[in-house]
């Protein structure tokens, strides 16, 4: 069978499942007792295993299988979750990700995973791998487990309850074999035989099958209901040779009930688990209700290329709509007017739907950050808490694709340069754990992404000194500048403020790349910082890159488009209103001096018409700076499809792109940011 056609689906789904694993692992780290999370991880791992085996990626399947075993042990409470185990599972997920990425890049998905597999196997056997991989220095987990109380599920509790009602007593026996015991399985068998004669075995920890295979250390726990006394049981078992000790504890059902009540959630899930094997589907629904998560909407998977094609076709339609509107105006036919207007409305709705279809929640970018932050914080020996707000904010797919790397840069920067080490933080009277807020929200036609840390902030003096040293600034200039202007300097290329160069950041290439990428998307980034209190990076992005509202203007015989987002208002002035101020023509606009930019001269438009004594002015802004663009006439407002000038003309002066007008001609879009200095 040809697998290629499924490869894409496989890769996509694998990524999703791995993402689920990572997310749930992080959640689990916060609430290690919540076994339902383990179940979620287990299910993702299980699906992944099945898929990769089907696709013939043995290494992938193998590693997932090992991971699954460990997860199984955890959810059946045979293994206790420790930070070390967490690390191993994280490592396994990392390896899996690397393998999937390798497959996505056309590789064979092979990777040396021996270490991780070994560690997983050790955990599975109940041994705890130490941080160094040497096999000799393994420590044994079961010693710590002896005090651990056996946890009973609902079913077992019911049995215990019933036996008690019928006059049986329940005992929990912890049996320890001699350290040099050779036939552990045989001893277990003998103990079990005795117990079975005396009463009924309710539960064994580890479970019987593992005991029989000698997959335990030296002690195990058995719960029995019997009419025999505690002492009798102990004596009988001690008769078996090579048994070191037997601890018998009479079970108090009341106490267990309480413990069970605390773990009610977990144990209900445990029962669910039993059913799950047969009817995975129903179980899933139940769990969804319980955990209060919204049930997933019905979705279908559509290749992004198809959506792109759809948008392209729609763009053609928008252009033709413009043409029709123009023709209808010229013909002045009532029926034509009506149907064109109707069509305009429908295409308007259609446009909303198509653009919305391409909207993706920023979560698709944000979701990889928690894991990254966790890893980074560990590498740098810092304590960092990442708080994400507004992950459901939606952005156009094209923006989403580009925004990942700049955000990674900024986050790395925040951890590396912003957040101090725990000792420093304590010294400054801050909480040991640093916090990074990652917040996304809509505002007007823009989406804002804010990255805020409560770290050291930017030291003005340091930036200044560095800039002067690198020749970016003179001392006189530096004195004139505001804090904000100084902070902006760290976006200059070749600028790195870190005193120490680290692996994470500080190569001086990060921030200027960030700025360039964001500008290329039509966005901007600003910094705010308070020394010792932290820094805030605010990224402003356009909602969509493909269809924008513009004002069409005419200069001589040429038409240009000015994006509405940068227009404040329009005005008509008389040429006598123009004042001359130091090489610059200005007007008095509501008490403010407004510089005038004659687009005809700036854009070198050939003169074919006589000039009027009245000027049409479009007042535009860049940040808090205003300017008046002098044009010949306003044509009107229109929705246009943004197109690039092509690969050949990558950067034309003051032109951010082009669009096709109703008459089929091309109009250039003016980039106001480039005009205002």
């Amino acid at each position, binding site marked *: 069978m040809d697998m290629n056609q499924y490869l894409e689906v496989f890769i996509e789904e694998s990524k999703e499942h791995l993402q689920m694993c990572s997310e749930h692992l992080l959640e689990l780290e916060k609430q290690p007792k919540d076994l339902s999370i383990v179940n979620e991880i287990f299910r993702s791992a299980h699906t992944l295993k099945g898929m990769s085996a089907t696709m013939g990626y043995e290494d992938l399947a193998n590693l997932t299988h090992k991971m699954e075993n460990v997860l199984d042990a955890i959810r059946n409470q045979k293994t206790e979750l420790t930070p070390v185990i967490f690390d191993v599972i994280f490592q396994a997920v990392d390896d899996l990700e690397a393998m999937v990425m390798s497959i996505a890049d056309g590789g064979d998905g092979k990777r040396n995973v021996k270490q991780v597999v070994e560690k997983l196997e050790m955990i599975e056997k109940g041994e705890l791998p130490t941080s160094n991989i040497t096999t000799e220095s393994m420590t044994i987990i079961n010693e710590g487990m002896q005090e651990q109380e056996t946890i009973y599920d609902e079913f077992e509790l019911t049995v215990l309850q019933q036996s008690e009602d019928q006059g049986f007593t329940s005992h929990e026996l912890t049996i320890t074999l001699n350290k040099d015991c050779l036939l552990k399985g045989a001893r277990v068998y003998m103990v079990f035989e005795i117990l079975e004669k005396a009463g009924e075995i309710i539960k064994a920890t580890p479970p019987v099958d593992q005991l029989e295979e000698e997959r335990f250390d030296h002690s195990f726990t058995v719960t029995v209901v019997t009419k025999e006394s505690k002492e009798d049981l102990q004596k009988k078992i001690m008769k078996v040779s090579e048994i070191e000790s037997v601890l018998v504890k009479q079970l108090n059902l009341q106490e267990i009930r309480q413990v069970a009540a605390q773990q009610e959630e977990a144990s209900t899930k445990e029962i669910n688990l039993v059913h799950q094997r047969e009817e995975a589907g129903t179980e899933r629904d139940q769990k969804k209700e319980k955990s209060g998560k919204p049930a997933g909407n019905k979705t279908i998977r559509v290749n992004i290329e198809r959506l792109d094609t759809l948008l*392209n076709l729609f763009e053609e339609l928008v252009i033709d709509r413009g043409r029709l509107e123009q023709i209808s105006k010229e013909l002045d036919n009532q029926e034509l007017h009506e149907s064109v207007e109707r069509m305009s409305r429908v295409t308007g709705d259609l446009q909303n739907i198509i653009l919305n279809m391409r909207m993706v929640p920023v979560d698709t970018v944000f979701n990889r950050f928690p894991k990254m932050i966790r890893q980074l914080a560990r590498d740098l020996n810092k304590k960092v808490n990442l708080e994400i707000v507004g992950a459901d904010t939606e952005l156009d797919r094209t923006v989403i694709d580009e925004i990942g790397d700049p955000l990674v840069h900024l986050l790395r920067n925040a951890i590396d340069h912003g957040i101090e080490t725990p000792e420093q933080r304590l010294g400054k009277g801050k909480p040991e754990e640093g916090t990074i807020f990652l917040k996304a929200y809509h505002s007007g036609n823009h989406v804002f992404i804010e990255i805020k840390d409560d770290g050291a902030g930017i030291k003005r003096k340091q930036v200044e000194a560095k800039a002067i040293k690198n020749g970016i600034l003179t001392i006189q200039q530096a004195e004139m500048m505001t804090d904000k202007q100084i902070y902006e300097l760290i976006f200059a290329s070749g600028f790195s403020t870190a005193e120490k160069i680290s692996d994470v950041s500080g190569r001086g290439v990060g921030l200027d790349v960030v700025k360039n990428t964001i500008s290329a998307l039509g966005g901007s980034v600003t910094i705010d910082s308070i020394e010792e209190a932290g820094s805030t990076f605010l990224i402003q992005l356009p909602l969509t890159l493909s269809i924008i509202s513009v004002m069409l203007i005419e200069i001589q015989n040429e038409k240009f488009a000015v994006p509405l987002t940068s227009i404040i208002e329009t005005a008509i002035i008389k040429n006598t209103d123009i004042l001359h101020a130091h090489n610059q023509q200005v007007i008095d606009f509501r008490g403010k001096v407004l510089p005038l930019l004659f687009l005809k001269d700036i854009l070198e*438009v050939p003169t074919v018409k006589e000039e009027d004594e009245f000027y049409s002015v479009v007042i535009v802004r860049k940040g808090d700076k205003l300017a008046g663009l002098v044009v010949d006439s306003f044509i009107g407002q229109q929705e246009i499809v943004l197109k690039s000038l092509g690969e050949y*003309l990558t950067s034309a002066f003051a032109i951010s792109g*082009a669009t096709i007008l109703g008459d089929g001609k091309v109009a250039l879009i003016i980039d106001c940011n480039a005009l205002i200095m």
Partner: protein
Amino acid sequence: MIEQIEQEEMKIIVFQLKDKEYALPVNHVKAIEKIIHITRVPKTVPFIKGVINLRGVIIPIIDLRIRFAIDDQVYTEQTRIIIVTLDEMDVGLIVDSANDVIDIFMENIEPQPDVVGSIADEFISGVVKLDKRLLILLNLEKVLNPEETLLSVKEG
């Protein structure tokens, strides 16, 4: 460079500029269009005439006469825009006329003679002799060098 054993055939599009015939491999040519409205793009080099809308795609246009420093001429009914594509870059070339598709053998391509004409040598990758015609093969990489599009980086 060209060896005798090569018997491969190649299709070329032939076009005219002033009194000479030039050629481009057909696999680089996407379409040949009549002259349509060209929107000027400010502050570019003179040989870039602007951009056109070709079925919804915006395509920059180079006037080959100006590019090769041949004296300018008013566009006529014969004037054509040859849409060429190179490394995902689509560009239109304005030529006096274009009307031939010819099969040539690779072995007939010769390195350019020392003196071919007024156009700069660097734009030529070879010549083909065909009966009494001399076809000049263009080096598209050189003709479409994107670094030459801006007047000067400093400007503006």
